[in-house]
């Protein structure tokens, strides 16, 4: 299993930051997932070996964190916040709109593997609600029209 040179460089450097090897686990899993698309069996085996942990240990940690996934998902993961500040400004309509637009439900992926949608909790954009993240990019003060325009932009890139 090979990761990118940037991944390796970061990994080597991070190991020097802590008195225990295991401490790099959570950020390393997320960076690995960003490269592979999800935490594949292979990636899990590799990371467990490098950190001298059991695979079970690693899987236990994965299952705790909401951003980590062992299932493939879309190249673009559309995450709509449906927490209170967003709900007060129309996030439920937006989420409904998002589901209809893609014909998908929570955590489902389009057949071509390009988009998946997810209902998420507060992403720290409450004063600019309603908000969403597509992968790591924030999109704020959304309306249905603005949502469509943004998604069309991603579709062109897809």
């Amino acid at each position, binding site marked *: 299993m090979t990761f990118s040179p940037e991944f390796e460089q970061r990994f080597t450097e991070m190991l020097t930051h*802590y008195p225990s090897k295991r401490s790099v686990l959570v950020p390393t899993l997320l960076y690995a997932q960003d490269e592979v698309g999800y935490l594949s069996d292979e990636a899990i085996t590799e990371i467990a070996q490098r950190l001298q942990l059991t695979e079970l240990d690693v899987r236990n940690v994965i299952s705790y964190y909401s951003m*980590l996934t062992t299932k493939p998902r879309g190249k673009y993961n559309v995450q709509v916040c*449906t927490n*209170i500040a967003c709900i007060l*400004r129309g996030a439920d309509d937006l989420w409904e709109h998002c589901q209809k637009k893609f014909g998908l439900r929570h955590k489902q992926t389009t057949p071509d593997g390009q988009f998946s949608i997810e209902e998420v*909790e*507060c992403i*720290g954009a409450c004063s600019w609600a309603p908000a969403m993240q597509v992968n790591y990019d924030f999109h704020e*003060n959304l309306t249905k029209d603005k949502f469509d325009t943004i998604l069309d932009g991603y579709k062109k890139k897809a």
Partner: protein
Amino acid sequence: MADLVSHPDEIKVVSKRFGQGAADIDRYLALDGYKAAQKALPMTPDAIINEVKTSGLRGRGGAGFPTGMKWSFVPKDSPKQKYILCNGDESEPGTCKDRLILEHDPHSVIEGVMIAGLAVNAESGYIYIRGEYRYLSIIMQKAIKDAYARGFLGKNIFGSGKKFDVYWHGGAGAYEVGEESALMESLEGKRGIPRIKPPFPAVVGLWGSPTVINNVETLASAPHIILDGAQKFADYGTPKNGGVRLFCLSGHVNKPGVYELPLGYSLKKMIYEVGGGIPGGKKIKAVVPGGSSTPVLTADEIDIAMDFDGVAKAGSMLGSGGVVVIDESTCMVRFAQYIMKFYQHESCGWCIPCREGTDWLKKTLDRFHAGGGVKKDINNIQYLAENMMGRTFCPLGDAAAMPTISIVTKFRKEFEDHLEGRPCPYDPVGSVRLLPVLSH
């Protein structure tokens, strides 16, 4: 990224470099950056701690614990390594301020971590940033690298012969990890399960060593206190509630945004003047004063001073500075339901009262809002929430229970309006979506 706002009543201290390009180290230096750390270097730990005590600074992460006192709890004679841990997990619904600090002024956070380090004789600090904030993690990595390159961090900081290291760390999505001991578990590469207290982190924290954990904004306030004087900071606020803080105005206001206002500022003024009032000229139904875990205030309860003691007197908490305004057209049962959806999702599952309590409350509220409620549910919701209070392993249980109790007691009439199979009278459209959960 996120838009910045301004209002004449603001006193910009922590936010004074917002929008000034201060993520760049040269720009930061030109704006008085790293002067406070150099001023603190020759000071004794006690002198630094006394300054912070004088400033009246209280934790901006939620509990409002006096920061100087927290720093003084670290045992001076311990032979162990000591650590500073900056809590940038920012996940309390309604809160979006640490994000702005990390984006616009990352060096002030590094400088704050250094000052805390000098105050407790620590030689390293970690800045934990939630996984969703990837762009901020990139900004922070660069800021740290630049500070090392200038000799502000490392083996010989500012040529003083003293050593101090700062590292960044990333999360991967979990509200519970914001709780201090769970954050330490997460940084150690484990599931974010809280630890039993005592011992407190000041004595046994990261890798078993004494650790000071503070919120991003708390630490970013420290350089201003050291450089501009503790008394000046204290005088902005009210007695025992020093300084200014970032308030995140959201929900039904005309001008939502993050405003830096003195502690003790009137909540009513904050909503009607700073926030520009309620859209459509509607009336206020309720206000969440300090993030989703704080008890809601009714429209009659908002004539209060926004400092820790003022909000406590009104039966709620200043919390994390997230002020969520709710107008008269909102269904409070539905609001309670969305709050509980969050806590049910985020409960780490470690202790039973929290895991089961949030789950049952969510199920009951879902059914109730869809019109499947019976009269005794109302008492049950209150009873369940009250029995979670103080009985969970960490305060997440309280965080779920407190807003629920406040809503079911202050807005009982709205619960009664949903009875006898009536779908939500305030939101007939929304409630239809919930119909599949009806179990009767």
